[in-house]
């Protein structure tokens, strides 16, 4: 699992790459903590290169969403694959995030 974060004009974009399974979630938790600091603005989770997500990953998404909501920010999930879309649907996440 690989994550890169860049901030331009108040928009923070995180490029997620690989499989976000349970051990990976633990691994990337610090990055999500970092994202939470920018949660007042727009945070884009670019999932173009994300192939898989487990519930632990979903929890990181959810936690970020909660902080963002609290700070009046916005979380956009971009380019999820069909598998992940299926998971989002099963968990009701499709309703909780702005999906692009």
């Amino acid at each position: 699992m690989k994550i890169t974060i860049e901030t331009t004009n108040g928009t923070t974009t995180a490029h997620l790459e690989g499989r976000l399974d349970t051990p990976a979630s633990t691994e990337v938790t610090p990055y999500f903590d970092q994202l939470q600091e920018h949660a007042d603005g727009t945070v884009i989770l670019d999932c173009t290169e994300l192939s898989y997500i487990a519930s632990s990953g979903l929890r990181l998404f959810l936690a970020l969403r909660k902080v963002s909501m609290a700070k009046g920010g916005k979380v956009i999930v971009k380019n999820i694959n069909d598998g992940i879309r299926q998971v989002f649907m099963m968990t009701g996440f499709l309703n909780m995030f702005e999906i692009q």
Partner: protein
Amino acid sequence: MSTKERSEKKLLGKSARAGLLVVVIAIVTLEATSITQYIYSQRGIKEEASQRAQSELQSATNRIMDIVNQAEGSVNNSLWVAEWCLETSPDSLVRVPQRVVEINPVVVGSTIALVPGYNKKYPLYSPYATRNLETGEIETLSLATDSYDYPSQEWFTQPMASGEGYWSEPYFDEGGGNMLMTTFSMPVKDHEGRIAAILTADISLDWLTELMENTKSYPNAYNTVTSRNGHLVLSTNLEAQQSGNLDTLVYQAPVERTGWTLSIVIPEKDLFAGVRRVGMVVKILQILGVVLIIVILRLIAKNQLKYKNLNTQKELIQNELRIGRDIQMSLVPKTFPAFPKRTDLDVAACIVPAKEVGGDLYDFYIRDEKLFFCIGDVSGKGVPAALVMTVTQSLFRAISSRENSPAKIVASMNDSMAEKNENSMFVTFFCGILDLVTGQLRYCNAGHNPALRVGVSESMVVTGTTVSQLPVESNIPLGLDTGFPFKEQEAFLGYDDTLFLYTDGVTEAENATFELFGEERLETTLSTKRDAQGQLEAARDAVNNFVGDTPQSDDITILVIHYLATPAKQERRLILHNDIQQIPQLADFMETIAEEKGLDQGLCLSLNLALEEAVTNVILYAYPAGADGLVNIEAVLREHSLEFIITDSGVAFDPTAVPEADTTLSAAERAIGGLGIHLVRQIMDEVRYQRLDDKNILTLTKNI
């Protein structure tokens, strides 16, 4: 005496009898030929002798006639003088014989003898003229003496009686010239036709003796002249003539006017001396020939004995090879159907060695509801290969009886064989273990031809059978390198699937134009569903038809395994420690299953997720913190379902008891936890929990 000696002696006796027969036949043939030749050459020689004698007699007769004619002529030509003298002056009659002698050299004496009383003046008158042999002068004397009485002599009486010329019997004249003589006498008639006198001419027969002696065609042949009365006039070999005890051939010819008979007498001994000499030479040659035949026969008999010995040895070797073959064949299972009581399995196999014994092998047997099987091909052919084959076969039996992993069986066999492999023989080997319940096939291929799998088409559109090679790792053949890490592989057989294993004798079978049968032809042959025996026969027939009359160059071995069970399941297992870092292994595990079942990526991801959530739960909560524990994950693959059985020995925990997460809630209201088990429920069709033997057993089922 040993059997061998006895049989040799018998054989020798036999050939001696045969040899004797040959010799006898040869002698009879040679003898018959030489007798025939002898008879014919005798005949030829006789004919030739006859011709020769005839021609000699002819020439002698001609010579005699010549002289006879001269003699007669000398008389006849003087007749007119005699007649004239009689008429005119009888005193001059003495001139007549003088004239005869004078002008005819062959005439040695002549007389004119008056018929007594014809002339008054000379009642007896016979002047005789003769040539003096020394001086050559002609002397005249009178034969009209008291002692001689010429009118009673034969030379006088005969022509008087017949009135014609007469040749006297030859006689030996002691008085005149001491020589053999003959006399021609002719009557002289007067003008009244009365016989007035007899005119004679004496001829010496010395020339005849000479002539006869010169006529000598054979060394011991002789000639005779006999007179008209049968008296012997002369013989060139009086001794032989008188002894007369020889076998002789006599050729005769008459001499006209004189009444003589000329004979040539040839002793047979003389005549056939040449033939007899030739006959002797032929006899000697015959004897030499027979001796030669006997020598040759002896040599042949000795050689035959040698060949007989060779043949016996060859037969012995052949016999031993046959026994060897029987032993080899007794090592491989060859009763078919192999498992008549089983409905889930059908096996057929065959070995067709190119020579009496071969280096191919196969084996199969069932242990613990698993079919252990193998096929192999030893490098090389004949007895060395056969020995290695038996070793390999025995090793497989021994090692597979206690090992359950094909790779371990192969590795163990390889170590045993490579350790003492001084001849660098190797064996290509395929070892498999088929779980008859689950259809799971584990196999290890050590450099052998990949097994073919004949199965039902997986495509929903295309129906029929597919033939495919089992994927094989590139392991080396057995016997080359100890400690080689053989890799094991796995496949699953479904109902009616067939495994076709073979040695390269099948694909490398060569026809008359050096074409190989090849894998393509084999796969085409197998592309129809048949039972094991049918599949085997189809392949064998195809090879036989392809090859035709070309002699088989390599052993041909086929092993066909027809799987007929509906496998309850295919099982896969993964064991993890209670460490979250081991979670990624699930992804690989799942991917293999998805590949095997042909699942799409979406479903694979979902199942992976459900599995991960369930396993994560166990890892995180089943065992006390810091305690080591295991999570056992078994995947059971059925035709239309997938089952995951997750077992742990941790504290009892029933995830199914956790309340459903409410996904309708807003993000703000949603709890962070509880998503995992929710996903498991969402993804799976059935989630079951059991607590058994102090173990948590969570069964997740997905219908596909």
